[in-house]
């Protein structure tokens, strides 16, 4: 029974990582940049929802909508101001700018909302699902997070695989110049990517804070790194990979704590990651693109 | 004994049999062409010869030494150098440094000398400079020695690649479409250069090329691949008039 309980906890934690990782991987897959500010957009999403429900007394769903709208706009603005001018620059330059944006968002949040942690009221209410006569509990947030993950994953896969904008995104990710020659507006396409990624970040933020209800200006940064790890674990750029990577990372983390040592759990999680990548150098579901010689 | 002996070489990609039962023999000092339609498996054959791909069947021997299973850099040290169909230069290095990098295993000094710039460092570096400039002069690239390789036009990049390959002092030089992107005059020059190089550096050359003027002009012997298999072999005259080759490759 404790095994199952740990498994459930792992999946709960993993589903949160997964939902963040989906946004990460989406932006990475198209714009080919590690958007280290993603975690902080998540934090902004959390605060938006918090403000809407706590200060303005809006219903939860309106809070979520507000968060999505604000984050989407924020994502586009960040992209336009901070990343677009670096389109021709080496990708590391964009990475550093993203870090600058991350600092900026954290410190702006600190000035706006102060450093005191807020307790987030979960947007998902209702009794936990109780199994085996109460011996096992699956919270509603977990169920919603998993459902959201699956829906988002499928939607993203359909979108990038089937829609016109989606195919344009894939072309842009391969070769921006050649994509332009196909008549694709590269800048618009990348903006759309950021809009979607940031919108997802808002949802992730709301779910993260619902599951682990404290909110501080730094709330997003560590889950952001974990989710980045999860995305790489699953094969960065791969949408189902982000989902699986997230869930597995959550399970590994919980199992490491439960069965080995809470003191060494961080090291164990990362050690597993390394071993997996050594066996599968492109992550679990990453496409192996062998360069033709 | 032939210098290079390839016996029933084969490789598959997924379901595709890219090269099958390929056997070749190249004598020392020879200049041999490998031709065939697009997608016939020529580049793949080069990749197996240089250790980039590991063949699923067959054998490769250079001067009697087995090359199968060796890493690309080991094969290079044994005396095989190549150029690439899609040019692969060290794009951020200068033209001169590209060639000096080719001299890596020719003129050596130790790691300690690298770190301290002591001992033979200066002497060896000077030797390298001289040797590299000499090679660049052969290809008429000495004027752009200081350019970043990435900024050269296509044709010059091709020449630089050959110069770099030669710097490794190979016994066998593999050229993958050296004349691609060159106009007839430049091709002509290149043919002369290849001849000069062959004489001066005593290398054996195996080249892939679609330019028949070059192929018939300098190759002594030809192998024709089609769908991964050997379709014909012989002197250019024989091969180029072979009706099957005409049908599959030359057209008209």
């Amino acid at each position, binding site marked *: 029974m*404790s095994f199952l*309980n*740990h498994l459930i*906890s792992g999946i*709960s*934690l993993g589903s*949160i990582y997964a939902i963040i990782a989906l946004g990460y991987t989406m932006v990475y897959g198209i714009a080919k940049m590690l958007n280290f500010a993603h975690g902080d957009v998540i934090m902004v999403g959390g*605060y938006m929802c*918090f*403000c809407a429900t*706590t*200060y*303005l007394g809006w219903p939860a769903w309106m809070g979520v909508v507000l968060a999505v709208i604000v984050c989407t706009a924020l994502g586009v603005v960040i992209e336009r101001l901070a990343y677009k001018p670096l389109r021709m620059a080496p990708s590391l330059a964009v990475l550093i700018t993203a870090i600058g944006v991350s600092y900026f968002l*954290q*410190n702006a949040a*600190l*000035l*706006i*909302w*102060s*450093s*005191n*942690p*807020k*307790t*987030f*009221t979960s947007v998902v209410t209702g009794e*936990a699902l109780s199994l085996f006569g*109460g011996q096992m*509990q699956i*919270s509603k947030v977990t169920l919603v997070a998993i459902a959201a993950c699956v829906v988002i994953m499928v939607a993203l896969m359909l979108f990038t695989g089937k829609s016109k904008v989606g195919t344009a995104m894939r072309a842009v990710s391969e070769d921006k110049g050649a994509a332009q020659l196909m008549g694709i507006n590269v800048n618009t396409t990348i903006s759309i990517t950021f809009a979607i990624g940031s919108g997802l970040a808002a949802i992730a933020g709301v779910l993260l804070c619902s*599951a*682990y*209800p*404290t909110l*501080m*200006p*730094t709330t997003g940064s*560590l*889950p952001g*790194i*974990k989710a980045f790890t999860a995305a790489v674990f699953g094969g960065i750029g791969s949408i189902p990979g982000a989902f699986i990577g997230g869930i597995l990372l959550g399970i590994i*983390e*919980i199992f490491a*704590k*439960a069965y080995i040592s*809470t*003191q060494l*759990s*961080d090291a164990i999680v990362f050690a597993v990651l390394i071993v997996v990548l050594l066996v599968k150098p492109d992550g679990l579901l990453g496409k192996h693109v062998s360069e033709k010689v | 004994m032939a210098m290079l002996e390839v016996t029933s070489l084969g490789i598959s990609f997924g379901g595709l049999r890219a090269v099958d039962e390929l056997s070749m023999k190249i004598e020392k000092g020879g200049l041999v062409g490998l031709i065939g339609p697009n997608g016939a498996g020529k580049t793949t054959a080069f990749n197996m010869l240089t250790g980039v791909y590991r063949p699923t069947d067959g054998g490769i021997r250079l001067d009697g030494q087995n090359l199968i299973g060796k890493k690309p850099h080991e094969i290079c040290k044994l005396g095989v150098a190549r150029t690439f169909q899609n040019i692969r230069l060290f794009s951020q290095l200068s033209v001169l440094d590209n060639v000096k990098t080719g001299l890596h295993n020719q003129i050596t000094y130790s790691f300690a000398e690298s770190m301290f710039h002591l001992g033979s460092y200066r002497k060896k570096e000077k030797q390298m400079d001289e040797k590299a400039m000499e090679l660049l002069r052969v290809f008429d690239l000495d004027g752009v020695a200081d350019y970043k390789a990435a900024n050269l036009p296509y044709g010059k990049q091709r020449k630089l690649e050959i110069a770099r390959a030669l710097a490794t002092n190979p016994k066998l030089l593999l050229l993958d479409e050296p004349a691609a992107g060159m106009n007839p005059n430049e091709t002509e020059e290149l043919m002369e250069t290849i001849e000069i190089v062959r004489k001066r550096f005593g290398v054996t050359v195996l080249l892939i090329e679609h330019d028949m003027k070059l192929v018939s002009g300098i190759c002594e012997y030809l192998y024709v691949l089609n769908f991964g298999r050997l379709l014909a072999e012989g002197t250019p005259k024989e091969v180029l008039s072979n009706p099957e080759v005409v049908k599959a490759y030359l057209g008209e």
Partner: protein
Amino acid sequence: LTGCGGSASSSSDSQNSGSDSTASGTAFKIGGTGPLTGAAAIYGNACKNGAQIAVDEINAEGGDIQFELNYQDDEHDAEKAVNAYNTLKDWGMQLSLGSVTSKPCEATAAENYSDRIFALTPSASTVAVTADKDNVFQMCFVDPNQGTASAQYIAEQKLGTKIAVIWKNDDVYSTGIHDKFVAEAKTKGLQVVSDNTFTDASANDFSVQLNDAKSKGADLVFLPMYYQPASLILTQANAMGYAPKFFGVDGMDGILTMEGFDPKLAEGVMLLTPFNADATDEKTASFVKKYKEQFGETPNQFAADAYDCVYAYKQALENAGATPDMSAEDLCDKMIEQFTSMTFDGLTGEGMTWDETGAVSKSPKGMVIKNGAYVGM
């Protein structure tokens, strides 16, 4: 959105007013470093605000002793804390409030010692902060004392027999309390059945730790940590239907006033804390009122400790007859003399005294949360 921004604007205003309120040369320059940005910013800002209120009060009285306060950001990092300390030194700091958090304070305390600038830290609680330094004092309990006191308290009051401990193993404060608690628990016959950790990187999910405690039948869970992770633990324990007694330390203070926190979750939680924002005595009530007015939040123990530090300085300076034109070194000697001899009454305790090591002696109050408020045990 303006609704959310209320607290920030007022805090920045007050900060400026503080340092300008008195002309320099006629006031004692007090400096402190603490995390004003980053993950630990809660603690730094609380101290800064608490000290600010005390300074404003004292200056408004217009007595002989006037203060000028300067708080510098150290981002909860030893290196930055030394930088911040040096900035304060350039500014002309005469008396120091050390640093807010333990590790940075260890670094600045070494500087205090070699520069002969007296330090009284509100909240840096490891032994190493004061060890071998005659001029560094603490306003808070030393971690080991808290650990020992907690174990003794639990044993004496028979609050539980099977104990689970959850602590943060990349944090000096938490580690220090944990180590002493476990040692003392053994001698007091308490059984530590479950002993688990977390780190910054895994500070969200506590299901494993709680499951372990639950399955081992722990009837009391000891939480030597700050209130932010503690609030998560309480929430998660509640969600899994696990309701042991929870026992916290001074860092737990602040949990009831967390914006949006459901106090019901903390019902029955016990903690040792020197400060109670709900106390009805005049001093506390006035402090809490002012704090709320200025910063829009309820003060926690950090703020109160910092407030006390300033008043302790005031008392010591008065006793010593010190004047602002004295050098930091002279003041240092005077302060050492005063602090080892005086008794001080503050928000966080009555009749506080200090020994030569710099550790404070004040009795922690056992509190229990009932109906969303602290009640003495």
